[in-house]
């Protein structure tokens, strides 16, 4: 059944997902009653204050952890199967590069692990390095790169096997504002070209609005989804600096903020922005 319903159209389907951690100081309910659907090719951001379970939800989707209740399907399969089939690529707040490997060898790591032959790997790595603008740095080591460059390597690595789903946990969280905005534009272009669905965790409202088709707003204690904002800025609208100046953009930023705070933001508050 799930094949016909979820086979192609749905990247992620979470139903009534909850996650409880057993800690020394008792049980921590990190997530409860999470229902989420991400269509193939859709860009969905998860936003919310620290501790609302964004990372936990992403780890569940990636099968880095398993839910305490509810079910998750990734392209109609269990997350474990999707992980084994390499249906998703993943990137975290820390780039997590292997310091003894060059940029090229880091980007090619998943390909290497999955037995892609040397020639095909070199070609794909060159393509990816080009895509993230690091062709000239392919032979460098991670400690010779800036934080933004390292993060681009990590993103290239997550794209290595052309996954249909990208899971990204605050990938730009450690970057300065300028680098961050440039990376957002780049990511938008890259994702547009690849056609992958994206689940993108962020703290930043403008970032979520800029990138997403939909923004899922979460709330802590216990972590749950409290609202969903359709951004409605079409994929055909170029994600560039001018978009950040439009009234439509500001209106969506305000809408997400209101959803996040649970109350309408006052007129003065709006101007203060």
């Amino acid at each position, binding site marked *: 059944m799930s094949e016909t319903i979820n086979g192609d159209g749905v990247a992620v389907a979470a139903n009534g997902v909850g996650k409880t951690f057993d800690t020394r100081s008792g049980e921590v309910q990190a997530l409860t009653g999470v229902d989420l659907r991400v269509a193939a090719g859709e860009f969905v951001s998860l936003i919310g204050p620290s501790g609302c379970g964004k990372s936990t939800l992403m*780890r569940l989707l*990636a*099968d*880095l952890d398993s839910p305490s209740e509810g079910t998750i399907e990734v392209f109609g399969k269990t997350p474990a199967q999707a*992980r*084994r089939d*390499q249906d*998703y690529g*993943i990137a*975290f707040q*820390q780039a*997590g590069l*292997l310091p*003894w*490997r*060059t940029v090229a*060898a880091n980007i090619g*790591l*998943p390909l*290497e*692990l*999955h037995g892609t032959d040397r020639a095909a790997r070199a070609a794909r790595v060159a393509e990816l390095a080009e895509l993230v603008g690091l062709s000239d740095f392919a*032979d460098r*080591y991670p400690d*010779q790169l800036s934080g933004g460059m390292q993060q681009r390597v990590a993103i290239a690595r997550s794209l290595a096997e052309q996954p249909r789903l990208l899971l990204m946990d605050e990938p730009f969280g450690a970057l300065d504002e300028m680098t961050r905005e440039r990376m957002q534009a780049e990511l938008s272009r890259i994702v547009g070209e690849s056609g992958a669905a994206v689940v993108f965790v962020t703290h930043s409202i403008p970032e979520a609005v800029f990138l997403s088709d939909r923004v899922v707003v979460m709330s802590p204690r216990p972590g749950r989804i409290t609202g969903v904002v359709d951004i409605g800025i079409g994929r055909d609208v170029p994600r560039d600096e001018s978009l950040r100046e439009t009234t439509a953009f500001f209106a969506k930023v305000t809408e997400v903020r209101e959803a996040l705070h649970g109350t309408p933001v006052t007129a003065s508050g709006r101007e203060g922005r």
Partner: protein
Amino acid sequence: MSVVDGVRSPRRDRTLRLVAPVAVGLLGLAVWQLLVGVVGVSAYLLPSPSEIAAEWTANAGPIAEAAWITGVNAVLGLLVGSAVGVALAAVAARLRWIDQMLAPVVAGLAVVPIVALAPVLNSMFGADSEIGRRTIAAIASFVPVFLNTLRGLRQTTPLHRDLMRSYAATGSQTLRTLTLPTAAPYVLTGLRVASSLAVISALVAEYFGGPRGGLGAFISTSAATSAYARAWAYVGASIVLGLGLYLVTVALERLVTRLLTGGAR
């Protein structure tokens, strides 16, 4: 990195690194010779470098032979001790209870003084056996290799482990691409420390019985017969032996680092 240091060329750096210690050494020898020759420190307190050098040339054959005997003991001890150290660390890194079982044993071994163990082992293996000394060198080498390797095997970060899991990497793939490269520098540090300890303990063990013939035995006989310059010549040979083994481990460290980084660095 090399782009940054425009001021100091790498070649000049290397020359300086070689010349500086040699210069310091020569200066030290000159001061020493001066102290003995001019100031007149008595020869059994401190023989002059020239006397020691003369003894060295006169006894070049026996010195080389003695260094070989001690060296073989040290190297065999180092190899066995390190192999056991790495193997047990690998097991302890996997199985918590093994680790907990080994921890007190290793802590105990780490504080066993060679002087205490040497006479016991020497008489245990018999007066004409080198096994006791090799065992002592092995025990001395085992401790730093075990501790460093265990530490190294635990240095993989949760982030890297998550990544490997997300790639559905097999156990052996994770071992090869993540765990071993992470641990390698730690293992090599352990080896480097162990190399010096192996020489020292193989040598000191000779003071306490067992067959004669090694550097330690000659040092004690020479000193006992007031042949101080000769004793110092053997001490010099011990230093050369220790340094030699140390340099081998340093070279090994370099080699492994180069292999790890694909030789491109």
